[in-house]
């Protein structure tokens, strides 16, 4: 089943979607061969062979029996397809009992993750293999689409509403998350990953073991890690081509022209302010679209990021 998708299903439910896909492919494949076959066969078989014989064709204007057949047959076939598509879909809408819950908020342009325990993350969701998980989706600005191709599921994240989606991962690994509802300049960069961990690994991560041993990590190193993990690079480049926001390299210490004509010197305080209150001093020529990191970054994490940015001369 996996081979028809060319990328493997990562849950039992995804396998059922693949089965519906295959069923439709077989039915439509049959009608494809039938109709295209007749079209090509008739075109070749009944091409005009000799000039002047063009009006010696039979005067066939219709056939009631045939027409009834080709109204009834497609009706029955499409009803069958509807039924299987609906059946699998409705099963997939009812979450398994005992599902873990993860809150996902779409923002231009990142996925903000909140676990019930209070832990937060950007663009990266960790779940355990074998344990169903329910995603509670919302948005803080425009509509986004939360799409997990390997799990064959998708649901819009809508401001002012909570929508939901659940799945039951049965393969460990890292799987793509895409945004599928067009949401502006960073739309195609609004990617994340679902990391399915073995239960033991997951437990260790949950205890914070993954964070251990980093207490003595130098601040700039820690900042670099945070910049990578917080979705900053979706909009800011560290080197090379400009993205949606200003380039990070050479930023610290430079004179930054602001909207409204003034300039500001990019010192530590300016960098800190731009992370927690991005709308306060918007760089000229860039859209005022960055979300605040006030709640999702602790003060010392902001400090680490600033220290990292200082190294990018």
């Amino acid at each position, binding site marked *: 089943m996996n081979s028809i998708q060319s990328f493997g299903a990562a849950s039992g439910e995804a396998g059922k979607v693949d089965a519906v896909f295959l069923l439709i492919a077989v039915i439509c494949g049959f009608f*494809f061969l039938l109709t295209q076959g007749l*079209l090509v066969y008739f*075109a070749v078989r009944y091409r005009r062979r000799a000039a002047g014989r063009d009006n010696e064709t039979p005067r066939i204007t219709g056939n009631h029996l045939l027409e009834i057949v080709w109204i009834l047959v497609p009706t029955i076939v499409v009803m069958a397809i509807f039924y299987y598509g*609906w059946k699998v879909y409705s099963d997939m809408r009812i979450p398994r009992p005992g599902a873990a819950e993860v809150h996902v908020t779409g923002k231009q342009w990142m996925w903000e993750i909140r676990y019930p325990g209070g832990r937060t993350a950007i663009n990266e969701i960790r779940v355990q293999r074998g344990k169903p998980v329910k995603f509670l989706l919302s948005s803080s600005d425009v509509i986004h689409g939360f799409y997990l191709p390997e799990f064959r599921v998708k649901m819009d994240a809508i401001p002012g509403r909570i929508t939901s989606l659940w799945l039951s991962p049965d393969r460990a690994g890292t799987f793509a998350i895409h945004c599928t*509802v067009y949401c502006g300049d960073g739309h195609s960069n609004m990617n994340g990953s679902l990391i399915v961990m073995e239960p033991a690994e997951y437990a260790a991560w949950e205890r914070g073991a993954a964070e251990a041993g980093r207490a003595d990590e130098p601040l700039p190193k820690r900042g670099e890690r945070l910049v990578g993990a917080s979705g900053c690079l979706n909009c800011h480049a560290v080197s090379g081509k400009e993205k949606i926001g200003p380039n990070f390299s050479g930023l610290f210490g430079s004179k930054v022209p602001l909207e409204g004509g003034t300039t500001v010197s990019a010192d530590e305080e300016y960098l800190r302010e731009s992370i927690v209150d991005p709308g306060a001093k918007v760089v000229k020529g860039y859209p005022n679209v960055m979300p605040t990191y006030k709640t999702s970054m602790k003060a010392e994490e902001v400090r680490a990021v600033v220290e990292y940015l200082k190294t990018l001369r």
Partner: protein
Amino acid sequence: MSAGDGKGYLSERGWRSWAFTLDHKRIGVMYLCTTIFFFLLGGVFALLLRLELLSPQARYFSNHAYNVFFTLHGAMMIFLFIIPAIPSGLGNFLIPLHLGARDVAFPRLNLASYWVFVAGFLVIVGSLVAPMDTGWTFYTPYSAKTGAAVTTLSLGVFLIGMSSILTGLNFIVTIHKLRAPGMSFLRMPLFLWSMYATSIIQVVATPVVGVTFLLLAAERVLGVGFFDPAKGGDPVLFQHFFWFYSHPVVYVMILPAMGIVSEVIPVFSRKPIFGYKAIAYSSLAIAFLGFLVWAHHMFTSGMSPLANAIFSFMTFFVAVPTAVKVFNWIATLYRGSITFEAPMLYALTFIFLFIIGGLTGPFLGALATNVQLHDTYFVVAHFHYTMMGGTVMGFFAGLHYWFPKITGRMLNEKAARASWALIFLGFNVTFFTMFFLGVRGMPRRYAEYLPKYHSENVVATIGSVILTLGILAMVWNFVQGLRSGTPAPGNPWRALSLEWQTPSPPETENFHEIPLVTDWPYGYGTKKA
């Protein structure tokens, strides 16, 4: 009127003779030229998009520029080309000729509809000071927040919708009131049936999009908050309004092309159309059912599973009258005496590509697979097979078929076949590839993509270059035909419908004497069945 100089309705010269004309044929030709211009412009945008997608990273344009280009590509192709091209262009030219009438019912209204259309696209051109980046669907709240000139654009779309309503009204009245003596509804060419169904959709559905864009403008200018949850509005409401218009309108796009195919197939097979009544009534059935399925564009927008199930169920019913038409066209070929001039090649291409577009519909109509494929390249491939493989190929069939009637000159058949071959090849390489991209999960409207989608994108871009060459060759052939084609006889294809019973090009008032209709226009074939 200057009969007998071989130039018919084209004999008057000077820009006033066009700008103030009340002749439905001239208005049709103005619509054709205008819409073909936008088709070519929209095609340029498409080519730019494909070239950018040669590399996974943004290489030639910024993300913003890419987003503007795909919005312009979609919005122009839909609002300025595919909706008006066949109804307002070929429809205007042909409806009175098919009916045996001297003009449409309201010639002045007809001229007004053209100039309202022009006003609409001028307003849209004006909105390019801050070009739109919303996609052609304008989903809120993004469209209410973006810095682009969406308000100006809304006014432009409003005007174009108004023009569409005027044309639809005019056609309905014309078909009811101006049929030649003896032409009952069941003796009308099938193109007229399709135009009749199309006009009904235009008159009923278009006001909804007008109101929708007014609401969007009110949201932006007055901050009303219809779609803003912070003010008690509903962001998804816009999608309901939008698709309540835009779904029926896909049938405004496809039905007229189906009408063209129903005209061309019998002539080049020398066979009566098979199942005339089934084809005629299925047009009306499609128009009716088209109003009941809009929310199948919204299965992942948080509607209740029950609502999704109902809309999925209704969606599958539209497949039935559509399938009936395809079966009837194929049956018309049976035991025919078929020749493959360019109009027939394009009509057969329509059927071939439309079958692929149609058979990929159930993947999207079925809920389980829809959730997987929605907003991926599978959808892009599917609607290009129906809209471009269907409507545009039908339009090309019509252009090649009626070129001698419209211009009084014949096209170069060899050049027409060569450009057809390039278009057929390029189209399939471009868009069939996209089905694979979609099944593998590549979302649409992506300026940048994961490297795993690279090879398919390169193939699709190569296809789009072949397709572009084919279309350029076709346009070149049209220009050559117009300048130096051999003069066309009145009825080069020996067809039976009324437009071919006048000289090419027709006189200003179409017929010296209003014809008396005694039979349907598909009386080909001599032998008893």
